[in-house]
């Protein structure tokens, strides 16, 4: 794939040129299947991290027969280095809410929730005001879909959709066995669509501009624009909306401080890319659907970075499954042992294998994705791990 020139775009954060609730109203005049197909054609994938095609998710949920269905907006944005959902909820909440309403209308849900992470409690009042406004509009256009805020209580793993549902049901936020998936049996056992904040906002924009327009952004196999939360050693920290499919080199040139050593894409659950691989790396859907990009310059110790991640994982693992609960502790203790000379450098290879076991056997995405950052840092910065 060629290096796309970095293009900043302005789809999601564009001002309300057409009011989101007008988009909702207009969309509701179209056949539901057509709207679902539009979303499928747009190539929009979930913007939370797992990257499941949004249109398909809605299609499956629509097909479920049930007396009750739910739409949940996942605003449990806990991935270190991610803060785009906060900005969306502050700046364009109506696009998010409209996306939820369109989804509810499509699948036949009458109840929705915004699962807001506890750390964002200060946003509640403003969102509630927006919800009041939405409910008025919904009444006017005859849409029977009510939205409430559900406040999380502080647990990263609740960003995993089944853990989020458990949490809403008043339980420990432990991910469920899948299948069944939430679209089959979700909140209170009913078909449930859980999408990320940005996904709903993007869905609104797909409905506004159409799949063809939307697909003009990005590359042949990665469509649309995407929000990137940029932090670390960057003079331009913040949320930026970019086209998908750019090379990491262009990205680092634009956002780095001129001394970029590595970029962590996709949050701590994603990959750490060293400078030597910038040219060949495309920031694509496989590694960045969550959109966290943390930039490290040459003053940073990658051992410290990895240590910080592993400490995070071993605290935020729910603890129920063996590979994740014990594996995260072993990786943390293991790199400490290598660094202090208690274990030989070759022990790192054992640990990489362990992280692969975690990928293969963990119950949910948390444990499965630890290997991404672990093996990419250990392999690319091995010397720093040892000396």
């Amino acid at each position, binding site marked *: 794939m060629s290096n796309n020139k970095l293009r900043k775009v302005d789809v999601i954060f564009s001002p309300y040129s057409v009011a989101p609730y007008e988009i909702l109203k207009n969309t509701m005049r179209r056949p539901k299947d057509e709207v679902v197909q539009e979303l499928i054609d747009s190539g929009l994938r979930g913007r939370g991290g797992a990257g499941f095609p949004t249109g398909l998710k809605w299609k499956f949920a629509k097909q479920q027969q049930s007396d009750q269905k739910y739409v949940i907006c996942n605003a449990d944005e806990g991935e270190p280095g991610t803060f785009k959902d906060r900005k969306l909820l502050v700046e364009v909440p109506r696009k998010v809410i409209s996306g939820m309403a369109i989804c509810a209308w499509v699948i036949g849900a009458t109840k929705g929730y915004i699962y807001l992470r506890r750390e964002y409690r200060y946003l509640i009042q403003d969102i509630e005001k927006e919800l009041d406004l939405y409910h008025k509009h919904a009444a006017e256009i005859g849409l029977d879909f009510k939205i409430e805020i559900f406040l999380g209580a502080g*647990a990263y793993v609740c960003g995993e959709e089944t853990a989020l549902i458990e949490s809403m049901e008043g339980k420990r936020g432990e991910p469920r*066995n899948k299948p069944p998936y939430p679209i089959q049996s979700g909140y209170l056992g009913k078909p449930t669509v859980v999408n990320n904040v940005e996904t709903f906002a993007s869905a609104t924009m797909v409905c506004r501009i159409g799949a063809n327009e939307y697909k003009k952004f990005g590359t042949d196999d990665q469509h649309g624009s995407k929000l990137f939360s940029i932090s670390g050693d960057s003079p331009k920290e913040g949320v930026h909306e970019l086209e998908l499919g750019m090379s990491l080199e262009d990205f680092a040139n634009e956002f780095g401080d001129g001394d970029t050593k590595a970029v962590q894409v996709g949050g701590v659950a994603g990959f750490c890319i060293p400078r030597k691989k910038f040219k060949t790396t495309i920031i694509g859907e496989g590694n960045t659907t969550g959109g966290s990009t943390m930039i490290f310059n040459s003053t940073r110790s990658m051992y410290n970075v990895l240590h910080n991640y592993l400490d995070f994982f071993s*605290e935020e693992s729910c*603890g129920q499954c*063996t*590979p994740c609960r014990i594996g*995260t*502790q072993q990786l943390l203790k293991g790199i400490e042992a290598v660094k202090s000379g208690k274990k030989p450098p070759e022990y790192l290879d054992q640990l990489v294998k362990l992280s692969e076991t975690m990928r293969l*056997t963990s*119950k949910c995405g948390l444990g499965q994705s630890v290997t991404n950052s672990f093996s990419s840092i250990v392999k690319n910065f091995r010397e720093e791990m040892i000396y």
Partner: protein
Amino acid sequence: MAELVKLNIDGIDVQIEKGQSILDAAKKVNIRIPTLCHHEDLCVAGNCRVCVVEQEGRNTLTPSCATPAEEGMVIKTSTPKVRRARKDLMALLVSEHNTQCTTCYRSTNCELQDLAAEYNVDNNIYLSVLKEDLEIDKSSWSIEKDDSKCIRCQRCVRTCAELQHVNALAVTERGRDMKISTFMHLPMNEIVCTNCGQCITHCPTGALTERRYYDEIWEAIDDPEKHVVINTAPSVRVALGEMLGFPVGTRVTGKMVTALKKMGFDSVLDTDFSADLTIIEEANELLQRLKDALVHKKDVALPMITSCSPGWVKFIEHMYPEHLAHLSSCKSPQQMFGALTKTYYAEKKGIDPSKIISVAGMPCAAKKYEANRPEMRDSGYHDVDAGLTTREIGHMIKQSGINFLELEDSNFDSIMGESSGAGVIFGATGGVMEAALRTAYFVITGRPVPFDNLNITPVRGLKGIKETSVKFENCLPEYSFLEGVEAKFAIAHGLINARQIMDQIVAGESPYHFIEIMACPGGCIGGGGQPIPTNDEIRKKRIKAIYDEDMNKPIRMSHENPEIIKIYEDFLQKPLGEKSHHLLHTKYRKRKRY
């Protein structure tokens, strides 16, 4: 007919009902997949991950216990990838575990140990992440909790919730600090725990064990001053053999008695004797309550509920403290036995009761706690000095070097060693009810209970709640108030079923007159002190052995037991009499619900 799905496991086509797991399908074709968090009695957790298999078309491994079999699935259960992953998982569990297996009570009967050995796990491959500040909770009379041996499979938590509906144990904290604990980490003796010990029999390792008392017993046996008496419950004899080389369901009554004698117990007696006694007292108590209600129009608590199961008793004390009046005031057979050992037995044998050590061999963990209830000192001494589980007795027999397989049979000593078949069936769910009906019906009508061979089959079996009714006709004059009355009975085992029965009572909707409740699924044969494993297949075999023992007894109704007749003549005088009241009946207390 349920929908079937066809899948392929290791090259073999398997058809199985939709909704069954890959693990179930593999079992069907004799493919063994290792498991740890899985237990037949419990819902699926899917958290240990050792049952992972390769599923075609997936790039991660699939937990076979937690994944429903689907049409067209292609599964491989033993590929290099699978074996490596399992071995790694075992190594992780071992790294979090206190691996001092040599001194562990569950050594050689531990699922973690078995699998670690099977996969030849290298203990040094990973660093130890065992928490250093863990202390064994020995606060309970019945249960020891050693977190250093816990693998967080949550079988105990699910047992306490799903089988018992007690929820004394819960998963607490998160991540590396996640553990199995109690409300605010209170010690086991300060919580709602019923001491039923089902968590022990469902624990794959030595994290939950019964508090052991056999060292004290050995000491007493070796003390020439002490006269050590043991009585063993009916369920012990149908399960003990499992620990000592016999197939499940073998009755080893005679060998057990011989072994206990060889070990040096001064007298080996039968709890079935006091089970028969319980029946006399309890049947009379029931008749008294019915008479008070029907004739004297008194406000008595009906239905009456059995009180033999100390786990159940503690459950109602915690969960339904306002409804204790429904409990029969009869002590359990163990406690009746203890009270009589240090009075009647001591008197008859001419032994100073202060020199008697009274031991109860029980299928139960809660019996240890029951023996230590402060009210259980009616003989003037500690009525029961110690309760041993079937497992402890098995251990003691092994410690003595006795070749159990080759032992000759012998009979229980006397006095208090004679029993009827009715006393025997106490061990199975429904057994107390059946025994009580055999006697009550006879007392009321002068005729045997109208069931073929005295076998009241509706009260038998593993259904959670069973019911039956009996119509009294042609009653003896003394019981004419029951003429034409159709009495209704229910039996529940497993405390989750007890809860249903109690909720009915609380709502004022209970149609029953008399209810038998046992804390443990299957009754005492499935008790928390029984050999591990216990599952429905094993429960059924033990139950069969119990009923076989009953059929082999010449006397099958409690009131016909000659020793029972004699104890009333010589000592107790009459059922519910003053002496009975003092020695054989008790009171209950309200407890907090946490």
